[in-house]
């Protein structure tokens, strides 16, 4: 099988992993003349976008799609009939460097099916990163999938070469995981995430201590995970509760939500149709509210409930808490402003900087990049006050619901 055909099989096998970030790592380049590559520490770089709207930043492939496990949702499960392939270390190293040299990618995101045992699989994955870093002095971004229960020394080595490590939690609760991925062990996944956090903390403390001995480098872009949405019957509340737990417990940089997607050669145990992509989007919005807007899970969604699909979770919260509005934009605290529908974190910073010098008026909203229609019922400006019955009216929600349109896409 030629490399091009392997690439097709092993990229196809990797595409259900939503993560593709190349952000948040250390600053690094090759201006010392040894090797090639650099990082874009701030936001990362997306070198292309596929028609599914997803960014293509890293060469995202599996080392092999052969797998011992039989996870029902997975295209690579042991009982699937997909063609199998395996890269040699050299093939994958060459492909990464060739793509990188042409500026197609920021680096490599390597995962693998579980072959033989966790340690063997992890060793194969680490082997690619080792060769890229040690022999080719590759300075680009590397994201490695970590195999739960892999040996500590292998994990330490993975962290030495990788910018980011990740272990997918896959399902929002243990029952679903047992049903859909009988060989996976949630306890083992969590224990390994715990081990990663201890190593991440240690490396961070070492960097902060500024001692002469250089601390052992360990995944400067931290760890992340992914949850599949819509394959099981878990509610959005369960999903977000799990996310909050994971962020707090293991300091994850990101939890990715991947709407279950129909796969070629699917198992009979799966729902045939995918959940609406909008659900995935709402979960990301709720995730942002937890991380950047000071919301608690319990505030965003009630026990065992789902997020509304027709309006975003912050607007839904505001409509449930109308007594807190309208807010005076020229006086309200940062925490309060962050809860106004349509106000993003950057808009709030701009508002706070601006109002020190001048008063904010209706005509300023556009320059603050605030969507006027969304915010107006909830705010008071020096020349605007929503009519008092407005906030009370039951029909207020209608104003925000998307208008019914013909389905289809413009192209």
């Amino acid at each position, binding site marked *: 099988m030629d490399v091009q055909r392997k690439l097709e099989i092993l990229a196809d096998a990797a595409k259900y992993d939503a993560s593709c970030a190349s952000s948040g790592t250390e600053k690094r380049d090759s201006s010392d003349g040894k090797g090639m590559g650099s990082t874009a520490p701030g936001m990362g770089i997306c070198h292309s976008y596929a028609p599914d709207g997803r960014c293509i930043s890293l060469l995202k492939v599996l080392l092999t799609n052969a797998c*011992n496990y039989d996870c029902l949702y997975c295209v690579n499960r042991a009982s699937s009939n997909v063609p199998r392939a395996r890269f040699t270390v050299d093939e994958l190293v060459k492909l990464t460097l060739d793509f990188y*040299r042409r500026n197609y990618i920021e680096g490599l995101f390597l995962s693998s099916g579980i072959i033989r045992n966790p340690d063997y699989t992890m060793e194969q994955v680490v082997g690619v990163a080792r060769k890229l870093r040690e022999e080719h002095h590759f300075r680009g971004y590397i994201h490695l999938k970590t195999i739960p229960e892999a040996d500590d020394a292998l994990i330490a080595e993975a962290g030495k070469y990788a910018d980011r490590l990740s272990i997918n939690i896959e399902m929002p609760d243990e029952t679903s995981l047992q049903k859909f991925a009988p060989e996976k062990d949630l306890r083992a996944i969590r224990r390994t995430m*715990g081990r990663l956090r201890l190593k991440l903390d240690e490396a961070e403390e070492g960097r902060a201590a500024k001692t002469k001995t250089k601390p052992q480098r360990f995944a400067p872009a931290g760890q992340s995970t992914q949850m599949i949405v819509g394959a099981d019957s878990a509610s959005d509340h369960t999903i977000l509760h799990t996310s909050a737990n994971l962020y707090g417990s293991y*300091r994850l940089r990101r939890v990715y939500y991947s709407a279950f*997607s129909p796969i070629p050669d699917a198992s*009979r145990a799966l729902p045939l*149709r995918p959940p609406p992509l909008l659900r995935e989007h709402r979960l990301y919005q709720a995730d942002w509210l937890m991380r950047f807007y000071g919301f608690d899970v319990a505030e965003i969604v009630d026990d065992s409930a789902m997020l509304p699909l027709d309006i975003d979770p912050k607007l839904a919260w505001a409509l449930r808490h109308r007594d807190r509005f309208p807010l005076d934009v020229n006086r309200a605290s940062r925490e309060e402003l962050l809860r106004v529908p349509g106000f993003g974190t950057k808009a709030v910073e701009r508002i706070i900087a601006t109002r020190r010098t001048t008063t904010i008026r209706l005509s300023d909203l556009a320059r603050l990049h605030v969507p006027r229609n969304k915010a107006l019922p909830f705010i008071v400006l020096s020349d605007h006050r929503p009519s008092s019955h407005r906030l009370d009216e039951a029909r207020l929600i209608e104003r925000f619901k998307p208008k019914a349109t013909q389905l289809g896409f413009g192209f």
Partner: protein
Amino acid sequence: MQYITLDTETDFAGWRKAARHLVLHHVQPTDVTWTVQGGEAELFAPPAPSPLPEVSDGTFTVSAKFVELAQAAILHRDGERFAILYRLLWRLKDHHDLIEVATDPDVAQVIAMARAVHRDEHKMHAFVRFREIGRERAAHYVAWFEPEHHIVELAAPFFAKRFADMPWSILTPDLCAHWDGHALTFTPGVSKNEAPGEDRLEETWRRYYASIFNPARLKVKAMQTEMPKKYWRNLPEASIIKPLIEDAERMTGAMIANAATDPHKPQKRPEAPMTRKIATDDLEALREEATHCRACPLYKDATQTVFGEGPKNATIMLVGEQPGDKEDLAGHPFVGPAGQMLDRALAEAGVDRKTVYVTNAVKHFKFVPRGKIRLHQKPATPEIKACRQWYEREVSAIQPELIVAMGATAAQSVFGKITPVGKTRGRLIDLPDGRKALVTVHPSYLLRLPDPEARALEYQRFVEELKIAAGLLKKAPRAA
């Protein structure tokens, strides 16, 4: 009217010098016309602008934020940018805070220009595609790119640092950047014909692009927002975007239609990938059993059961409350800050931690997540009761002579009822089964005391109480 002619489209130094001069001469923004040498506007400028006399005494400052914005905004292709920047500078000299007023039209416009320039720079970093000329060591990499703004000089150092080991050129209609492995050079713009038309890896790249695309989740608008069509003509993968979209619906339909399949052949797989250790003795068997404990709901949110540790023939058993953040991650009791405090106190009391068995009344960490941290929660009576079986079984496996209960939760577990620490601490108490018990505080209580003096006192008392245990250890040195 003052006519200022800048050397190039990106001549920030020239603009800065001229603008400074104009401000010091109190030249109104409406009285200045800005042009660029060789630019169209220059044709209409009078041949010999009347130079202003030099002034040396005047001085004024502007915020660093303005300079930063201006350096970016000046690369914008809008011909009015020099005038807009001068107008803003003119207003800023008497009104420093103006730069923070995002609602001011001039500030908003300059911010928007700077943002557009940075976005263009970012897109250039992303969308330049090098094509190889020659092979292997003799190869030269050449790209063709059409930037929206004057960003070649701004964006080029990124490529020099990233591709330090390969000679490359980026050709654009405005300006071309070249790197020979040592230095960056710039030459005038060229036409697209000068750039190579293909690369041997582009077909492989297109195959990757097609394979990583998931036809079941078409979001064409999201793609175009981030990768506008104007960039497509120079992206090798763009030629297959349209066919991929056209085919997506058919492929998804086929996936759903043929959804369920049965495996062609049953795969041979190992039975249990997570091999479980076989217990070697009672304590090991207990430990293993406890990893699966679901007697209370605390297991759900915690990482793992944190079981006791220490020699199985220990004379002294120390009981704490519950594992904390660090213990939960590491799977060992008393390894966090409270553990360090305990180690220190034990050492001062003359007890070697390696000779005592250390455990907790509750074996899972109880907490509530608060952003990036976990707030410790005191275990409730049902949880203490549910977990007591493990404590009891540890006691019967170890058969310690003395049990030290640290804190109220431990005391509740040891005595089987709510036992106030203050009234019982510091003396040996007989347990019904003939063992001795000693109640003291939990080391994390010492960590929480805000007053250093009180903390030192309480710490001394804690050490003194541990010395009672140490005394017992000397009398009956069972732990080898």
